[in-house]
Structure formats: structure tokens, C-alpha cells
């Protein structure tokens, strides 16, 4: 065996894909050739080290929850409805309790007072969730929406490669209104199509007609295998459209194929944007000041010091501008994630009566099962609320009984 062949077989040796004969001749060669022996030792150690390279490395604890947080944000409308319902109901219970207390007066009021503080924070908690809703529509006027957005931002993922907080700029959490709201909107569309090629062309046409462009594209499966139906094609696309066209795009894309999921998520970066802009202005002022010092520099040493300070500030300024540009493009151009699946099942444009009935039945069955699941989940989530209501209502009932008894006693007298 030659050395070259030995090296070619080295991977096979460790993968166990060599014949017994090949193994033997490699081992023989190793005995005779120190060069190759060394290669072998190196490979052995390398593979051993690689296998254990990340032993004990675990994901940060908030990795999955962070991702889920972002995923849920895409689906907020449904959640909000549940929160709205619960919040409303809790508020109603509170009103009822208070009303009962007031009506019954005297001894009754004392009882209701002790019950109310328990219900109040809960109603407030639920209401808070509901209050986020206005931020969903970028209302330019609403200061309230901005406040809600500011609260949300605390849990927001860092959107850009944060130009590390230098701390020189004063941290002021409230956004300055002059920027307007900086909201990044992203959409997700999943659809199924039967006429893959036509529909993809239509989709691409739609993107360019709206002044958008495709930034990333992955296609799986092939046309050939698609014909047999065994391995239908699917496409994953990431594209950008002007954000004022986003709603129109989502709507019109929905007419291309059969949409199975579509959602729009919003991330408010107004605060970070304002912060960075303030920092940028501070750096620019500082830059001008240092630049002015240049004329007064007496020694070469001073000059060098000033220049290095200037280049540091230049970098900071560039960083800030980079972040602002990044946000601006994100705000002006929405990202849309589109996934398309080729299907053979026909959802015909002009369905027959029978087809429509079947589809309708299938859909309502789906809705029904989904609804049951949702109901169970919502009920489960409502357990704490229900538990407290029971306490509240029991207290109110107890008070009512007491009062009624008292009144009767008085009458008897």
C-alpha cells in the first residue's frame, strides 16, 4: 500500500466502511511508515476530541421560551380574545360584588370590601393584556398605544446587533414623538397549491409588482417526483415588500393559493430607535468638539490622541447610523415568510354541490375539534380566575345571607 492510498482510506478506516483486507493492509503500512502512523494518530485524537468537544454544553435556559415568545407574538389576536373575555368577566364579577356590597350597605359593605382587593389586581392584570391591543394597529396619534408599546419592549428580543450601550447617552425610556412609531411588521403565509409552477410565477409577479423582492428561497422535492405524488414540491421563501403594501400583499397572495395559515406580527422598536438616535446626536456633538480641539493641539502626542479619539467616535457614529438604517429598512420594508406546498388534492375553483358540502362538513368538524380543544385549554387557563370568583361570590353570598337575616331579625322586633 502506498502512502497516498493510506490517506484516502483513512476516513473509511474510522467509519468502519473498509473491507477486512483493506484494514489489514492499512495496519501493516502503519507499522512500516511513521509518517502515516502519525496521520492515523492525529485522526484518532481529532475524532475523539470532536466527539466530546461540546460535552456538557447546554442551551441557555430561555432559548426555547424566547423562541416561543416570538412565535406567540405572531398569533396574538386569538390570545387577546381569551384575555379580553376573561378580563371582561373578571371586571363584571368585581362590579357585581361592589354593587351587592353597596346595595346591602352597613355590615354588607365591610364584607364586600374585604373581598374586592382580591379581585381587583386580577382584573387589572387581565385588562393590561387587553390594553396592548391598540399597539397592533400603528395609530400615529395614540400616545396610549406608544406607552403600551414601551411596556412590551422590555421583553423584546434585541432586533439589531445592538451597538453596545455606551452609557454616555442619558437613558430615557419614553420615546420622542418626532420619530413617529417605528414598528416592524412581518407576515407569515402558508399555502397549498395544485398548480405549483403557475402559482409560483403569479406569486413572484405579485412580489415585483408591489416593488418587493425575494431575499431567500429554498425549494424541496422535484417536478418529476411531484407527478407521481410521492414527493410533492415545497417552497420556502423570504421576501421583502414595502410595508405600506404588506396588507395588500397578504390579501392578494391569499388569492393565489389556498392559504392554510396567515399571520402578521409587529415589533415596536420606537424606544431603541429613539435611544440610538439620541446617542448618535451626542456622539456627533462630541465629534465636533474634539475636531475643534485639533487646531489647538500643541504637540504631536496630543494630535495623535485627538485622532484616535476621533476615529473611535467615527466608529460609534457609524454603528449608530448602521442600527438606524437597519431599523429604517425593516420598518419601511416588511419581511414576509411564505411557504408553499404542492398538493394533489383538488380544491376546485367552482366546486360542485357535493364537494362544497364535503368541504364544509370537514371544515366545521375541524373547527369543532379545534374549538373543543380551545375550550378545554381556555377553561384550564381560567382555573385561577374561577377559583377566585367562587371565593368572591361565596363571600358576597355569605354577606347577603347575613344581611337578610339581620333585616328579618329587625322586622321581627
Amino acid at each position, binding site marked *: 500500500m502506498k502512502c497516498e492510498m493510506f*490517506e484516502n482510506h483513512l*476516513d473509511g478506516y474510522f*467509519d468502519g466502511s473498509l473491507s477486512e483486507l483493506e484494514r489489514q493492509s492499512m495496519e501493516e503500512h502503519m507499522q512500516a511508515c511513521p509518517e502515516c502512523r*502519525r*496521520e492515523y*494518530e*492525529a*485522526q484518532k*485524537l*481529532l*475524532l475523539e*476530541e*470532536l*466527539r466530546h*468537544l*461540546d460535552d456538557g*454544553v*447546554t*442551551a*441557555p435556559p430561555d*432559548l*426555547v421560551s*424566547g*423562541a*416561543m415568545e*416570538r*412565535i*406567540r407574538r405572531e*398569533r396574538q389576536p386569538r390570545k387577546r380574545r381569551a384575555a379580553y373575555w376573561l378580563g371582561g368577566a373578571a371586571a363584571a364579577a368585581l362590579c357585581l360584588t361592589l354593587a351587592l356590597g353597596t346595595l346591602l350597605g352597613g355590615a354588607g359593605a365591610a364584607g364586600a370590601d374585604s373581598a374586592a382587593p382580591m379581585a381587583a389586581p386580577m382584573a387589572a392584570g387581565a385588562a393590561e393584556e387587553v390594553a396592548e391591543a391598540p399597539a397592533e394597529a400603528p395609530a400615529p396619534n395614540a400616545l396610549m398605544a406608544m406607552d403600551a408599546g414601551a411596556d412590551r419592549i422590555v421583553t423584546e*428580543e434585541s432586533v439589531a446587533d445592538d451597538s453596545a450601550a455606551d452609557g454616555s447617552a442619558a437613558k430615557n425610556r419614553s420615546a420622542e414623538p418626532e420619530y413617529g412609531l417605528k414598528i416592524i411588521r412581518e407576515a*407569515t403565509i*402558508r399555502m397549498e397549491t395544485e398548480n405549483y409552477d403557475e402559482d409560483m410565477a403569479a406569486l413572484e409577479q405579485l412580489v415585483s409588482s408591489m416593488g418587493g423582492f425575494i431575499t*431567500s428561497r*429554498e425549494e*424541496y422535492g422535484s417536478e418529476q417526483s411531484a407527478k407521481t405524488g410521492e*414527493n*410533492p414540491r*415545497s*417552497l*420556502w421563501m423570504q421576501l421583502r415588500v414595502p410595508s405600506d403594501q404588506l396588507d395588500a400583499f397578504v390579501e392578494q397572495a391569499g388569492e393565489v393559493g389556498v392559504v*392554510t*395559515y396567515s399571520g402578521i406580527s409587529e415589533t415596536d422598536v420606537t424606544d431603541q430607535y429613539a435611544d440610538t438616535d439620541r446617542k448618535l446626536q451626542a456622539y456627533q456633538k462630541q465629534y465636533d468638539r474634539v475636531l475643534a480641539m485639533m487646531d489647538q493641539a500643541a504637540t504631536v502626542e496630543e494630535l495623535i490622541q485627538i485622532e484616535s479619539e476621533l476615529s473611535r467616535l467615527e466608529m460609534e457614529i457609524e454603528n449608530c447610523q448602521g442600527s438606524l438604517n437597519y431599523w429604517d429598512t425593516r420598518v419601511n420594508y416588511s419581511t414576509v*415568510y411564505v*411557504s408553499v*406546498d404542492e398538493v394533489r388534492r383538488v380544491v376546485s375553483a367552482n366546486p360542485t354541490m357535493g364537494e362544497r358540502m364535503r368541504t364544509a362538513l370537514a371544515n366545521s368538524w375541524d373547527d369543532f375539534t*379545534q374549538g373543543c380543544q380551545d375550550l378545554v385549554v381556555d377553561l384550564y387557563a381560567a382555573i385561577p380566575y374561577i377559583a377566585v370568583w367562587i371565593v368572591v361570590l361565596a363571600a358576597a353570598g355569605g354577606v347577603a345571607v347575613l344581611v337578610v337575616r339581620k333585616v328579618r331579625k329587625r322586622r321581627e322586633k
Partner: protein
Amino acid sequence: METDMLNLKRASRGDERAFEALITPHADATYRLCLRMMGNEQDAADMAQEAFLRAWRSLSSYKGQSRFSTWLFRVTTNVCLDELRRRKRGESESMQALEENGLEIVDTGDTPESALDRAELRRELKSAIACLNEDQRAALILRDVQGLPYEEIARALDLNLNTVKSRISRARAALREKLSRGMELSAEKRV
């Protein structure tokens, strides 16, 4: 496996809880993959999260043609590669030239006499991996760090088997070359 299928079905209908149950067992492996691809913890966490998000968004393209973990690694690898390529485009020519000769940049100037101990060896190895070109790096990590069979890597990277094998082989050779001096000494010491 049964519950995985159920969770998968539910997740592709838009059930986040099912999706969470589906990805949680793979969180560590996904993170480690990102860590080796990106080379630092902050980027690794960002990319792993991004990978989960992309997995969620493109869940409908997973047809059960491979194990879920393989598909997830594929998505993760693509997320990392996209990011690395995006950064590369933004880099200056000179940086790119440096990266092409990457094995030299991280040379810490060890004298041939100094034997590497294990910790040092690992450090060297990590920086050597970071200097491989990203396609070789992806294949090598999936095979030698994650321990995936060649066939699954081929599927994950959408390459044919021979390409995968030759990429891994070339990556190993590059690492061996980088480490052989130090390894020889440390191997002798251990014997």
C-alpha cells in the same frame, strides 16, 4: 415517537404548545450546532432562536422524509450559513483574504517544542473549526460533533453522499494539518 407524530400534526396546524414540546428535546443539540457554526455563545443563542422560528414557519415543508431532528438540523444549518454568508458579503476584501488563509490567523505562535495539553488542544480545535469554510464546517460538525450518519447529512444539506464525504474528509485533513504538530507531542506524552 408516537407523541412526536401527534405533536408534529398539531404543530403544523398551528399549535404552539405542540411545537414547543417538539423542539424542547433538541434545544441543546441545536444550540451546540449553532455554537460550532458561529463560534460564540451570543450568536449561537440568536441563531438557535432564529432556527426555531424558521422551523415553525416552514413546518409545512417537513414531510416526515427524515427524522425530525435531521430536518431541524438542516433548518438550523441553513440559518447559520445564511447569516455567515450575509456577514461575509459585508466584509472587506482583505478580511475575506484573511479568512481564506484562516488557519494561519489563529496560529498563536506556539513553538513546536511546547506540547499542547487537552484544554489547549480543544481551544485550538475550536478556532481551527471556526476557520474552515462554512460548507466544510457544516458537514464536519454534523458528522463528527453531532454524530449524524453520512446519509442524514446528505439529506440535511441537500447534497449527494460523495460530496458530503469529500467535504468531511477535506475538513478533517485541514484540522489534522493544523493540529498534527501539537497532537504528535501530546499523543507521545500520554502513551
